[in-house]
């Protein structure tokens, strides 16, 4: 239910050409075969009454409100379950149908509380609407107790922190159950009992909170009454206005209707026309927005001379003046290259663009990097080397056409849940699944889904496995020779390389731990099973050979011809909402916007003319290099935009040492985060509800982020950057964020056709968006690769230097959980902590038993760089010898443990492989290792 109502066609669309012509209420309409009469009627501009039907769910035919008369057909069939037929003549309204519908409504209303005026769904209730539409004027049976047996005393389940389930208002239409099944794919809900006793239940005799429910909100969205209702609506009342915008969480980039009363956000409702999510959502995007108005938010600028001093709240003018003066002083003392900035994947394209512009044009160097350094920088490198473009190849809907889905190093149901649901839908339709992951992630075996092959490899052996897959494809004659010959280059030498016996599944079985026959079977399935699509995540990139694995996957896709059409491709699942965009916008120290190298004179010339200043032609420092250079003294000041590097970057002690060595650290953020503890200037940032700009998601989709309220801090973040630049002596001014996008468009060929006006008109576009593709490019490399020919790359497996030893015999791998996001700065300030109040160490029961560890034990986790404590959870999802934790809570400080090993090509940290020991702690230790390194202890 929602304030802003998109058209509801009642049943899903059917693919195919509109060839079936029929007449409904005298109106002729032509629709594709398989379309329901209900949907055809809507196309003809006719609304048929309905309660159990909605167009994101298959027809159910239970409410009987949508009955119609069809010439030649007996009785009054339900229009939702009746497919159209050529020449069909349908009547949707007459006296008989009206009487039958009123009869149905009488039965519903006789067992429904008549509290419309005080009901939370008043004005937004389909049952109420249908009473009006059907002309219900009396209920012959009475209502409530007078009608006899009823459900009016049915209890309300308030266990979920975000929504209530008021069973007394349930009409048993099954929309919630079907939404959980068909849209979300969790199958947590069911109809319990039969006949009059039928009722919605979350599992067997448990509350919603105790059930398998993942709180995605699909059931709330589907409910036609107030049975499943957001608590915020119950508490605050119906919203009065609605703004379409984009989620601030993961790289799926869901579109939402932000629904408000005045300036107060009441609820987020997934937008049906959103290209990325098509009306679905997850627990974070739909419900976890409370952080935006959390009292912890920093609302005024603050400065201090030393981090041991207390913060001083100051005016914007003073904060900006202080920042500019100190930056120039430091450059005067230590050189032009002694300062730099880190952009954020949580800010808009426009905000990122002006930061990199400030670095290049005002700081006069290329010391700008982005948090994508520590997640998907290998994607940018690997795909550019092979395909010629630093981005995924497909749109999300492409998965609907995949026959074999290969998921490697990704856990979409937790980290990209809305896309995960889409993938699960396709898998339930029969697509085959191959999972390459040390852990038995949920996808491996979940309701109605089972992976054909789970290659549970040893952490750090991705390249060996991907090479083995390619080896089988090449040596067993499964290469798509025609595709390779027409579209690719350097195949012959790669074929010789990959055919080498050292790459065979048998040769690598011992080091990967995966039986050779399983690898062979998976390779055969990927190569011969129809459309093969690869989806991958940080389990690929965050390794010492992250870039090599990306190139290896590109080799796989090219060798099998799985590029350039729907259902195939190589698809990175980006971690944060604007990882793609922050990279696109020139955040890497060696690339100007659009991934063009700083040494390219022609490209620099474009910016030098526009910006009126010479630009350096040498790369700048990457984030790890900034840390190293801070420690060696050549890098003295850092501007950090919306990123908590002190918590998210590896080897916390090393990061702390670097931050402690800086003379000036400027943090722009919503909260006084872990990094801000080392800062001298804290500039309050804006939440996504206040931003005006664009995010670019994992499928290159540029979506509008529309402000639903003015900046609560008084300034847009891009304005702050402009004012710092001006205070440093460089005139930078824009009237609006739209003007920044206009500058991006005229300087970046892949964005040439993008403007706020265009986005407002068409909804969203996927870059490249230019004259050749004015509405964007959903699928890339269709006729030729961006670089011309796809290039096969030799991908030699080189083992990581991080290996288990007698002292550190286990391998730790880190990741995310559904309810929390990244460093938790946002989600920890919402009720999502109900699901994940602390980081937990998962380990196999065998590894636990030999250490005397039980489920819930407090354990010490140590590596060669640090030590922390947390509680253990025994899990057979983990292979023996491997343990897992998340990095959402600063009190745990998982990155105290991780090392500064990194991807050879990009320096993306090797988060996924750390040799550790786990010991049972008899006495819980409260003080964490990370805390012991905090500023008050370490000082300068």
């Amino acid at each position, binding site marked *: 239910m929602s304030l802003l109502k998109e058209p509801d066609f009642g049943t899903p669309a059917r693919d195919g050409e509109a060839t079936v012509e029929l007449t409904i209420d005298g109106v002729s309409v032509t629709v594709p075969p398989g379309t329901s009469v209900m949907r055809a009627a809507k196309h003809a501009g006719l609304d048929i009454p309905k309660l159990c039907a909605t167009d994101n769910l298959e027809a159910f035919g239970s409410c009987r409100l949508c009955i119609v008369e069809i010439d030649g057909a007996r009785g009054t069939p339900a229009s939702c379950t009746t497919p159209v037929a050529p020449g069909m003549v349908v009547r949707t309204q007459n006296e008989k149908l009206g009487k039958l519908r009123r009869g149905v409504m009488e039965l519903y209303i006789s067992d429904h509380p008549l509290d419309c005026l005080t009901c939370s769904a008043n004005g937004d209730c389909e049952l109420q609407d249908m009473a009006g539409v059907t002309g219900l004027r009396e209920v012959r049976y009475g209502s409530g107790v007078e009608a006899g047996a009823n459900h009016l005393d049915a209890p309300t389940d308030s266990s979920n922190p975000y929504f209530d389930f008021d069973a007394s208002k349930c009409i048993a239409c099954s929309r919630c159950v079907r939404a959980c099944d068909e849209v979300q794919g969790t199958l947590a809900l069911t109809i319990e009992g039969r006949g009059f006793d039928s009722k919605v239940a979350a599992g067997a005799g448990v509350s919603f909170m105790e059930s398998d429910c993942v709180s995605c909100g699909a059931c709330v969205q589907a409910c036609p009454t107030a049975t499943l209702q957001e608590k915020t609506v119950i508490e605050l009342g119906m919203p009065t206005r609605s703004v379409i915008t984009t989620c601030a969480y993961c790289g799926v980039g869901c579109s939402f209707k932000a629904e408000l009363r005045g300036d107060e956000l009441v609820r987020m409702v997934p937008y049906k026309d959103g290209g990325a999510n098509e009306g679905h959502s997850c627990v974070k995007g739909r419900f976890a927005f409370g952080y935006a108005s959390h009292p912890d938010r920093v609302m005024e600028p603050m400065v201090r001379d030393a981090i041991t001093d207390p913060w001083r709240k100051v005016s914007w003018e003073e904060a900006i003046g202080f920042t500019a003066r100190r930056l120039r002083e430091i450059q005067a003392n230590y050189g032009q290259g002694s300062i730099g900035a880190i952009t954020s994947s949580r800010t808009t394209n426009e905000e990122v663009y002006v930061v990199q512009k400030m670095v290049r044009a005002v700081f006069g160097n290329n*010391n700008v990097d982005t948090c994508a350094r520590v997640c998907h920088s290998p994607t940018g490198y690997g795909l550019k080397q092979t395909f010629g473009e630093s981005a995924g190849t497909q749109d999300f809907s492409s998965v609907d056409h995949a026959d074999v889905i290969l998921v490697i190093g990704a856990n979409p149901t937790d980290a990209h849940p809305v896309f995960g649901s889409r993938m699960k839908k396709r898998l339930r339709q029969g697509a085959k699944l191959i999972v390459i992951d040390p852990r038995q992630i949920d996808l491996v075996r979940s309701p109605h889904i089972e992976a054909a092959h789970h290659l549970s490899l040893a952490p750090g052996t991705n390249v060996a496995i991907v090479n083995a897959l390619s080896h089988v494809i090449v040596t067993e004659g499964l290469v798509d020779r025609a595709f390779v010959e027409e579209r690719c280059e350097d195949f012959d030498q790669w074929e010789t390389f990959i055919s080498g016996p050292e790459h065979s599944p048998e040769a690598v079985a011992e080091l990967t731990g995966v039986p050779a026959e399983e690898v062979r079977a998976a390779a055969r399935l990927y190569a011969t099973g129809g459309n093969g699509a690869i989806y991958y995540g940080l389990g690929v990139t965050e390794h010492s050979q992250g870039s090599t694995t990306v190139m290896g996957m590109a080799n796989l896709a090219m060798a099998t011809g799985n590029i350039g059409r729907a259902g195939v491709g190589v698809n990175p699942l980006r971690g944060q909402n604007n990882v793609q965009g922050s990279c696109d916008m020139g955040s890497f120290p060696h690339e100007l916007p659009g991934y063009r*190298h700083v040494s390219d004179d022609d490209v620099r010339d474009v910016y030098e003319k526009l910006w009126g200043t010479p630009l350096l032609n*040498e*790369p700048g*420092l990457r984030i790890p*290099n900034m840390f190293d*250079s801070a420690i060696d003294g*050549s890098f003295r000041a850092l501007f950090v935009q919306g990123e908590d590097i002190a918590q998210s970057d590896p080897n916390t002690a090393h990061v702390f040492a670097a931050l402690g060595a800086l003379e000036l650290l400027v943090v722009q953020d919503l909260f006084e985060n872990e990094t801000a503890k080392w800062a001298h200037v804290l500039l309050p940032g804006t939440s996504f509800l206040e931003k005006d700009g664009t995010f670019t998601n994992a499928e290159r989709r540029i979506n509008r982020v529309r402000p639903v309220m003015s900046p609560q801090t008084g300034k847009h973040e891009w304005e702050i950057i402009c004012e710092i630049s001006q205070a440093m002596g460089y005139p930078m001014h824009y009237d609006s964020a739209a003007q920044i996008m206009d500058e991006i468009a005229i300087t970046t060929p892949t964005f040439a056709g993008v403007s706020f006006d265009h986005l407002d008109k068409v909804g969203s576009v996927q870059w490249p968006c230019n004259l050749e593709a004015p509405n964007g490019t959903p699928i890339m490399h269709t006729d030729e690769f961006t670089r011309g020919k796809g290039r096969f790359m030799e991908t030699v497996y080189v083992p990581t230097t991080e290996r288990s030893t007698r002292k550190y015999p286990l391998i730790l791998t880190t990741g995310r959980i559904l309810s929390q996001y990244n460093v938790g700065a946002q989600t920890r300030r919402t009720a999502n902590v109900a699901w994940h109040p602390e980081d937990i160490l998962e380990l196999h029961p065998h590894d636990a038993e030999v250490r005397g560890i039980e489920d819930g034990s407090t354990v010490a986790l140590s590596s060669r760089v640090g030590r922390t404590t947390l509680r253990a959870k025994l899990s057979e999802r983990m292979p023996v010898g491997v343990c897992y934790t998340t990095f959402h809570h600063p009190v745990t400080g998982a990155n105290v443990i991780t090392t500064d090993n990194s991807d050879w090509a990009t320096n993306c940290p090797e988060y996924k492989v750390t040799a550790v020991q786990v010991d049972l702690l008899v006495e819980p230790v409260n003080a964490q290792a990370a805390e012991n390194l905090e500023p008050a202890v370490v000082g300068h």
Partner: protein
Amino acid sequence: MSATGLPPHVRLANEIARQFAHREPADAATRIANHIKAVWDPRMKAALISHVDSGGEDLDPVAALAAEQLRPVEARGAQ
């Protein structure tokens, strides 16, 4: 200094060199040098060259060869 005890430029150059260890040294050195030229900040390149000049301790020999290609052209001519 990193947890490995090596200066960052040495550790990073060695990591790159390991990826090309299967190639002939001259070819590997060129590939390593090209990669470093494309993505390293000048101070890191200078530090690597300086490390080579001071004996190249713990630096992969092929990475040391690559470092020679990072020298400014005039400096290379003077070697």
